[in-house]
């Protein structure tokens, strides 16, 4: 029964019938995902945000907004205490339940998919409409759609995103990082994995032999595992061919994706010229 309910909630999408209608223009918004917080600030609606998660740290101005805890498994009471007229959640089954709970308290809530670049285009338009900034939303949406519409350049390097070393986890074709790499001229050697990320053997990384390892990190130092002997079987690790990607630009799908693509393109060109 519960599963059925959840399924019907998911089928209805953002706003099931039992939740209160969103206001024509929200003025007190609690944003429960780093990517929606960034979007709201990009739309110029930053001063309408009255709550954020602990992990929403970009743009720096977001740090001035009160912290209401986690975005997955959110603290309903802390959110309600901010007296929001709109709550924006990351779309997941658990957060659909949270949105229904908020609805029972009379707080309108929307859940937005925020996993891929096309999600950001959709979310920008949706949040633009909800905050009374349709023009800004459409403009970001159009920029993202234009980026996605650009034909991908011919690959200049074969890359692998290694996000964890033990067990080795890589980014697959389902992630926005794979999209960014493709647009920048990097062929993700794990593009065929449909998932956003997956555990693989080091052996598989050796066999697919990427030219460069891409690492999400704010420090430019090579990752700690690069001195471990089993990792030195990977040619790119042995040759120290790492590109570190700062979290602000690459840590989530974001309206700054064009800048991320350009930065990655420059890094790939620099590394292949070396």
């Amino acid at each position, binding site marked *: 029964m519960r599963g059925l309910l959840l399924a019907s909630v998911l089928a209805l999408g953002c706003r099931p019938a039992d939740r209160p209608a969103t206001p024509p223009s929200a003025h007190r918004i609690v944003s429960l995902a780093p990517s929606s917080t960034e979007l709201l600030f990009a739309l110029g609606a930053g001063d309408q945000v009255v709550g954020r998660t602990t992990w929403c740290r970009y743009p720096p101005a977001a740090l001035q907004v009160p912290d209401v805890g986690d975005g997955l498994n959110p603290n309903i009471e802390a959110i309600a205490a901010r007296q929001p007229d709109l709550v924006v959640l990351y779309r997941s089954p658990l957060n659909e339940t949270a949105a229904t709970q908020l609805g029972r308290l009379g707080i309108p809530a929307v859940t937005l998919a925020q996993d891929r670049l096309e999600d950001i285009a959709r979310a920008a338009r949706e949040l633009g409409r909800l905050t009374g900034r349709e023009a800004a939303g459409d403009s970001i949406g159009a920029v993202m759609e234009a980026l996605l519409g650009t034909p991908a350049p011919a690959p200049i390097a074969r890359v692998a995103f290694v996000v964890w070393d033990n067990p080795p986890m890589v980014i697959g074709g389902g992630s926005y990082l794979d999209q960014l790499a493709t647009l920048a001229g990097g062929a993700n050697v794990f593009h065929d994995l449909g998932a956003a990320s997956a555990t693989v*053997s080091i052996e598989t990384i050796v066999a697919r032999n990427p030219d460069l390892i891409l690492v999400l990190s704010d420090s430019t130092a090579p990752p700690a595992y690069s001195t471990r*002997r089993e990792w030195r079987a990977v040619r790119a690790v042995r040759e120290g061919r790492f590109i570190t990607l700062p979290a602000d630009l690459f840590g989530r799908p974001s309206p700054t994706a064009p800048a991320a693509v350009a930065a990655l393109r420059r890094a790939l060109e620099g590394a292949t010229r070396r």
Partner: protein
Amino acid sequence: MSRWIGLGALVAVALVSAVALGPAHVALGDLASSEIVRSLRVPRALLALLVGGSLGVAGASLQALVRNPLADPFLLGLSGGAGLGAVLAIALHVAGPWALPLAAFAGALGAMALVYRLGLVGGAQLDPRVLLLAGVAVGAFSGAITTAIVSLAEAADLRNAFLWLWGGLSGASWDTVLVMAVYIPVPLVVLYAAARPLDLLALGEEPATHLGADVEPLKRRVYIAASLLTAAAVAVSGVIGFVGLIVPHITRLVWGHRHRALLPAAFLGGGALLLFADTAARVVVAPRELPVGIVTALVGVPLFAVLLRRWAGVRS
């Protein structure tokens, strides 16, 4: 004798398939010259053998020590301690290529010391029942602290730490093999030397004392040696379940209750099971990989059920 030949053959087949099979295609003729085989598959196979063997022996010894068929190497709080150590290392951003295994090893040793101390609460004697309860309590307590840290800290890294804890041999290299090969012979020899007194202990502490076993030092030696084996296993490969629980029972069904035969058989059997499980983990969903602990359960439990049925059939 034929049982030993059979077991030896099983280990040989497990080793050969672990080296010959993998997610990357290596032609049979190139096995000897392949870099993948030399620096990844062979050390990983040897590590699986050493870790599986250690868990098998640790499980068999602990089951005899606490006289409880449900005992396994991780029941005595070591996995909780190792997990806490690993998660602390990540949360505090301790850097370095060996930070995680060392922190897990330290955590496991901490849990071992705490459980041992609690096991002595009744006085100078190590009470196996108290030891079990202390193990469960320390495990639950460190698990609670671990979960608290994980729920308060940045999500992604620590979720990965949990993945590491669920067990896997992807950290295998000639370095880890060398460390294990130097380290485990000492506890293994201590346990093997205790084989005969362990047989007596199975009769109960009092009869064992009457039959000449020096029960108190024996219990301490066995507890510490088995825990040291488990701590090393968890440091290099996380918590790999079922090997230490099921392998001793299977070997007992075939070799009987004499520890002089049981312990070596449990070492080889544990090694073979983990070798097969890890090969399956690497190959079945390639290019992705399964956590090996899932495979040991999927392979070990049905095998155990079949043997249990046959054994029950023989008895009735």
